[in-house]
């Protein structure tokens, strides 16, 4: 490969760039106040060039936060140009416009421009999911009945929060008076600015050390490198057209058929080292419900992430720099006005679950072409916001409930874990109960529900919360109506569900989306996570693996017999003779 910079210097510069993004993430995570950033790690940090091409990202960032950063920068540049403004040293911009790069409103980006010898040379950017952004109900998830972009909370379109180094106080005052729990949220925003400034300082020092030309050459090489890796991986996949269709719940309790059981369709066309991804066939946008997905910032990230995780699996290929070069071979089309390319001001704040369903559908489409590199269908996620007011003031707590992976070639699916484009962390029970009027009643794996397969699907969790004071819950989930898909002869997994058990003992099964709902002290919410699909014929599963699951209490003897054709004897060992007989009879 022809390179612009000598390969030794390039390696040195690449190491330095990565080091900067990691430092930004490390500091942001450690400085921030709300658990969604510090515990769940729902943040991103990256450096871009002056046009928004991403140079490096922090390895701790969650992909759905770092992935959209180039879009944030492009959105800000467009907005600034559009209003005849210009970017000056010392400026800091705040941006969350879902129709101009942002993934959705609560993911606020802070951009610090980097200057070298008087000219704009790049951006240092941090993004993070904020607990509240001043929407109609407390919290920034579970806003499942916002009717348009304006109902989703504050909209920031390249808002200058520092003007040539001076804090723009009025903007910060607006934030403080329009955001619930402003101490936490504004504190996190300040931490974002501080972390982005550190990145800018380090990048400027790198520019001073190597000069713009060398540095540009080195990262152009880096982009080419990532592109080459991706092209090689795509070229190894047989040319052809691959199609898949899945469905999301939408609003299962709605009377309007246009709001529920909505198709997501993906057609991949692979030609040489290019992939074209077409979402034609996906349901029309929901004009007044916020499950629409920004094409830039959500759909594109879902597609890129899934393809690179399959084709350039880091477990096999090692860490390949995530940058703009990696996405060059991939083009994406979604018809305007569909769920995957909504028209402003269609609401988008609850795009999290549908976006992960896009990722899952991309995997389903490409699965027949690369069957040893995929998992069977994943279980989707769910976000819950609990809120209330104590003597000390209002409180909001967000919890991302895990899904599960489908079975994989040679391996069972990962149990109770974030799936595909999300990779956050849960909150420790001891943290939740120490700080909030909530009690966690259980946190375990579900039993007897795993998707059977030669390699079974990952198992979902069960987690229950009890309100210790009057409060409220909002739920933004999906995956309750449709089973995660089985693959290559594996059985389907099982869906998620949520129960509300009221203090008086009444139990109510809830749909996957619940707008702000008041709860009384003593009410309990139990969330059952989904189980991924099975991979391969369950009758081919190694009998000792079935026995292990029985001994571990994950399945019972009856399931072993019915689903796997394995007979467990009285001594808790596999009865091989009976097993062979039973399997032969199927």
């Amino acid at each position, binding site marked *: 490969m022809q390179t612009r910079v000598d390969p030794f210097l390039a390696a040195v510069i690449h190491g330095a760039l990565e080091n900067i993004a990691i430092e930004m993430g490390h500091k942001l995570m*450690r400085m921030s*106040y709300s658990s969604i950033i510090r515990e769940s790690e729902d943040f991103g940090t990256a450096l871009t060039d002056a046009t928004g091409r991403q140079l490096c990202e922090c390895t701790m960032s969650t992909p759905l936060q770092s992935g959209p950063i180039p879009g944030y920068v492009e959105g800000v540049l467009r907005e600034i140009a559009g209003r005849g403004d210009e970017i000056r040293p010392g400026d800091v911009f705040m941006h969350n416009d879902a129709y101009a790069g942002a993934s959705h409103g609560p993911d606020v980006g802070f951009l610090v421009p980097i200057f070298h010898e008087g000219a704009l040379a790049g951006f240092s950017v941090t993004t993070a999911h904020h607990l509240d952004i001043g929407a109609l109900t407390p919290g920034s998830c579970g806003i499942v009945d916002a009717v348009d972009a304006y109902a989703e909370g504050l909209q920031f379109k390249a808002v200058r929060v520092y003007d040539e180094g001076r804090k723009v106080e009025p903007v910060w005052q607006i934030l403080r008076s329009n955001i619930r729990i402003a101490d936490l949220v504004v504190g996190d925003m300040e931490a974002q600015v501080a972390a982005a400034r550190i990145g800018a300082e380090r990048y400027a020092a790198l520019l001073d050390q190597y000069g713009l030309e060398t540095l540009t050459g080195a990262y152009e090489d880096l982009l080419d490198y990532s592109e080459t890796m991706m092209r090689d991986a795509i070229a190894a996949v047989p040319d052809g057209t691959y199609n898949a269709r899945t469905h999301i719940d939408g609003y299962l309790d709605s009377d309007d058929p246009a709001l529920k059981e909505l198709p997501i369709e993906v057609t991949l066309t692979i030609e040489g080292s290019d992939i074209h991804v077409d979402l034609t066939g996906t349901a029309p946008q929901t004009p007044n419900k916020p499950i629409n997905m920004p094409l830039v910032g959500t759909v594109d990230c879902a597609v890129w992430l899934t393809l690179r995780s399959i084709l*350039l699996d880091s477990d096999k290929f090692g860490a390949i720099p995530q940058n703009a070069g990696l996405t060059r071979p991939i083009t994406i089309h979604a018809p305007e006005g569909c769920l995957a390319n909504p028209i402003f001001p269609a609401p988008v704040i609850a795009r999290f679950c549908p976006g992960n369903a896009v990722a899952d559908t991309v995997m389903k489409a490409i699965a027949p072409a690369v069957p040893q590199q995929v998992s069977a269908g994943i279980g989707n996620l769910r976000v819950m916001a609990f809120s209330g007011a104590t003597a000390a003031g209002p409180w909001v707590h967000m919890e991302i409930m895990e899904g599960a992976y489908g079975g994989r070639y040679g391996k069972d699916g990962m149990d109770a874990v974030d799936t595909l484009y999300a990779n956050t962390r849960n909150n420790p029970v001891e943290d939740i109960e120490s700080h909030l009027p909530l009690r966690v009643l259980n946190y375990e794996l579900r039993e007897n529900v795993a998707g059977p397969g030669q390699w079974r699907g990952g198992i979902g969790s069960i987690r229950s919360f009890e309100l210790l004071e009057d409060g409220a819950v909002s739920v933004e989930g999906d995956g309750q109506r449709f089973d995660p898909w089985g693959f290559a002869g594996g059985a389907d997994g099982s869906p998620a569900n949520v129960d509300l058990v009221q203090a008086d003992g009444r139990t109510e099964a809830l749909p996957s989306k619940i707008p702000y709902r008041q709860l009384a002290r003593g009410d309990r919410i139990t969330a059952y996570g989904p189980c991924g699909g099975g991979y391969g014929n369950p009758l081919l599963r190694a009998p000792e693996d079935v026995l292990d699951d029985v001994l571990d209490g994950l399945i019972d003897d009856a399931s072993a017999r019915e689903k796997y054709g394995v007979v467990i004897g009285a001594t808790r060992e596999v009865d091989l003779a009976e097993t062979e007989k039973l399997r032969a009879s199927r």
Partner: protein
Amino acid sequence: MIVLGVDVGGTFTDLILADLGKQQLTVHKTASTPANPAIGVVAGLKAICDKAGIAVADIDSLFHGTTVGTNAMLEHDGAVTGMVTNEGFRDVLHIGRHQRPQHYSIMQDLPWQNRPLIKRRFRHTVAGRLDAQGGELAPLDEDGLRVAARTMREAGVEAVLVGFLFSYVNPAHERRAAEILREEMPEAFVTTSSDVAPQFREFERFTTGAMSAFIGPKVRRYITELQGKLTDQGLRGELHVMTSSGGVATPQMIAEKPASTLLSGLVAGVRGGAWVGSHIGADRLITLDIGGTSADIGIVRDGRLAEADARSASIAGFPVMLPMIDIHTIGAGGGSIAYVDRGGAFRVGPESAGADPGPAAYGHGGDLPTVTDANLVLGRLAPENFLGGDMTLDAEAARSVITRLADELGRTPEETAEGALTVLNSNMANAIRSRTVQKGIDPRDFTLSGFGGAGPLHAAEVAGMLGVTRVLIPPHPGITSALGLLTADLEYHALRTAFAVKGGVDHPRLTHLFDDMEAELNAIFDRDGVPADKRRMLREGDLRYVGQGYELKIDVPDGPLDAEALERVWQDFHDRHRAEYGHAFEASPIEIVTVKVRGLGEVEKLGAPPEIAREGTFEPVGQGRCVFRVGEALETFETPYFDRATLPTDRDRPGPAILLQTDSTTVVPPGWTFRVDRFANVLMTRDDA
């Protein structure tokens, strides 16, 4: 007073014997015996006593660094372990933080699911629950516990962890459960999560406890056997084992808290580096310990070894919630392989040729270009005089593998070899920056100490990348870890979760927490027979702004903690936060999360290093054509090779130069001046500093 340090590594067991009265050091190296490390220790013990002309019985104290616990974790070869936990929480260890280690991978494994420390079938739940303040919501179900204990006993469980929610606030349920388990399973190793790591965050605490149970029987067996063997050899002195926090502990403490040895083998190096530095006034030190496959980096500030950040320590992919010295390990060493990857990028490491086949230059059939081969091609290693002549290097083989790589890159062999070193050195410099610049510490105020077999080869160039102007190479770079063992005091820790917020601190309670911890440590020192005037108690707190999730360590003054005493603590926290992250939230309330006392019990150990004085001149034992980078260009220098043991003391000499000795080779690049000091250290300083 005679003390012996024994450091057991993967390949070699290093021993160093010090006669403190006579200021005499004897060193010895013997092959390790991984199947039973005690055998190698005993063989080495006998050999070094012969060498020094003493009897085993003359040794007053034996200091030991072991990797038995570490290896049990790395090889996932521990006890059949069980657990008792709260009803409803059987799978905390399995679900973890529900996060995948790799963002971009479908086929990855989750260590805690793929190779669990405690299988689900051995995780039992019992009723009983505390709230966040430690109040009892449901009593412990003792009958259920006995049933679980019998089930585990019948299943052959050898070690049990008791892990209950909120045990860090109130350990009563855990303690009672452990009591019952010990009654029901007298043979088993029983431990509790609050004993191992009394801090909040259940997954991390339970995992640390599980680790302790998993490696416990093995470590305990090893220590017991070792002590027996040593006694059989006539050892009358005490055995001390190095712990992850950089101190030593008695065998009894290790048997109770085996997880404290997880970094035992690594920390001794930092200790050794710190000790050498302390005698030349270098109390701000970066230690760079480079071996065949990895480089271990440690930071010493004001003579104190930097501790790992709360929540960033891990081993074998599992989080460890224990006080540990911060040792940053990266895959960079003499065996690191240089290659062009499938995307066309040039890389060095982390894959290593290891010891077998090793670098091409070893002539054992290695055919991949390594860092050692690059050093040889550039003339920085003397082929006839590697490791003091114990081994001859094959210069032709090295050149041939480097040339092959050079052809692939379209560069000269010299450019390629130098490029490999630059990339490797830059990786190490970045790792050092992550522990200095990124924490608000300016490395330019530090001395860099290079040791291990390959540290002295790279130290000066790494220092140059960081703007560090002083480099220290200890007298015996290859045995610095064993030396470090002889410099440690007994060190134990007591910890409590405090959750005290500025403005609402219950001062008597906080003072009492510290007094209570000091009493706990004093009881241990009483048991160990440490006299009162040899004890020191150092107080610390982990603080954060209310709402944050990561704490910073701040020193806490002795005596009663009234408002005035705490004022200093709050201000220190703001300052530390600003230094570490570049920002402080002055208006925000501060919370003391955990409080800690480090108890130090002084033991007889190495005092000052022996002094030497040598007259004479710099007489080369050879000369080579060495290639160095000078600015942008590569230049070739006629470079003298010196035998380090013959160099005059306290006389400056400009580089370039190559200094040979039995356990390492030191490179002095052009632009640096070196001298041998009165402690036989090599000191290098940058000319433009």
